[in-house]
């Protein structure tokens, strides 16, 4: 290798380093181009997208009514057994006995958020919630009962 090619290699290499430094320096002098979010300080303003799959919820309206009839299709479709439905027999206003939901148990620790339960629900009772801070000290806290205390089936849902 001649002296000339050695020197040109040296300068070319040095120049390539300077080109790289130009990029990093431009960010150093323009802090407004930095896009980092300050979590958890921004918790109040942090809003997830509406379709974000944080957890499965049973939608209740303001009168504490839900749409779950206890048919068990979500339990059947779940690939990991994260949904358990305990049903009971209830007598309706017309005197007929019909199946109703006692407990809709959801094991968040086993859920993989595949979305099959929400998609397959025939009465559109289930939905995805946006809550994502699920860290707890006790694993038992991740087994949730989705139907609220004293909630009843919405009128007109079969």
């Amino acid at each position, binding site marked *: 290798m001649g002296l000339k090619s050695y020197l040109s290699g040296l300068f070319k290499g040095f120049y*390539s380093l300077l080109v*790289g430094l130009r990029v990093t320096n431009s960010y150093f002098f323009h802090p407004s181009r930095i896009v980092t979010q300050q979590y958890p300080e921004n918790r109040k303003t942090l809003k997830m997208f509406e379709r974000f799959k944080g957890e499965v919820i049973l939608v209740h309206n303001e009168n504490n009514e839900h749409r779950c009839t206890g048919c068990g299709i979500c339990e059947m479709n779940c690939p990991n057994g994260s949904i358990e439905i305990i049903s009971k027999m209830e007598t309706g206003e017309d005197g007929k006995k019909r199946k109703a939901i006692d407990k809709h148990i959801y094991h968040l620790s086993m859920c993989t958020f595949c*979305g099959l339960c929400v998609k397959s629900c025939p009465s559109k009772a289930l939905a995805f919630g946006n809550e994502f801070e699920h860290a707890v000290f006790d694993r038992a806290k991740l087994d949730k009962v989705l139907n609220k205390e004293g909630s009843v089936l919405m009128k007109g849902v079969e």
Partner: protein
Amino acid sequence: MAEEFVHLAVAGTEGQDLEINMGPQHPSTHGVMRFVVKLKGEVVESVQPHCGYIHRGIEKMCESLSYPQIIHLTDRMDYLSAHINNEAVCLAVEKALNIEVSDRIKYIRTIIAELNRIASHLLWWSSMCMDMGAVTPYFYAFRDREKILDIFEETTGGRLLYSYNCPGGLMNDIHPNFQKRVKEFIPYFRKSFKEYDELVTGNVIFQNRTMGIGLLTREQAIAYGVTGPAGRGSGFACDVRKRAPYSAYDKVQFNEILYNEGDSFARYKVRMDEMLESLKIIEQLIDNIPEGSYVEKMKAVIKLPEGEYFQQVETARGELVVHIISDGNKTPYRVKFRSPCLSTLSVMDLISRNQKIADLIAIGGSLDLVIPDIDR
């Protein structure tokens, strides 16, 4: 077997072979992968991969699940190209049932698959640079990957594992903002792609550490079944999107990137150029998404007719093949996944012999191994 675990004392071992474990908990193996590396001084004599640390038995689990349920498991094989894995199973099931999905579904699947490929290559780029000691590229790539993940999160609900496909179509329609966001992303990414080139590709240290390192010839790539960017860096034209087009790939114009050098730098260049090709594909499709339903009418319980079904797709790492054997029930009799990373791993020993141990890391980075894809 017991001799494998014997560690020789370093002092007074000049001229002797030294066996070290790289992994299973090593940051540059990108997962739980153990390489037993035999060294003579600083020179690698052989690399013996030991896989199985993250084996979950996905193929066996598939045998007890129905076809829509299988899809969420394929997310967890090559988690960086989760959407493309989902697509493979869906295409195989649709082929078995003789269902032709509408153009809208094909277009959306292709756009999301290409966005997924860019996101995957960005993560590869950042981690390869970090393997070689550059930390800044990691943050730059993750900044831009975040934009893609936001698009995914808005439409599919997931950031890494989407489960957006289902046999016969998609889980949801695209979000109203989807087209606008993708159109904003394309010029933004072209601009930041220039930064990547300035920052790393032209860098003299990077070039000296990758050029001529880890040579894989075309014949070796074919013999070992190395597909994807690693195979194309050796001149092996193996892009499934060109050879056997699926979804909307027969409707778009794009180039198959080929480099003939076969070294780490060629593999690097293939992936970098592929990101721009993916942008081209998205540009051609994003304005022309046809109207229509996002899911075809399917039976509530999907049963495949008896027989064998086969579908290949191009993931970000190479050729993924799904082979379903059905006996007519609602669960498959047997499912086999041919994952690209296992074949790529098999050349690790071949191409890193007589290289320096520091270059072994760079070679591993250029092959872009995803460990859950190897073990499944």
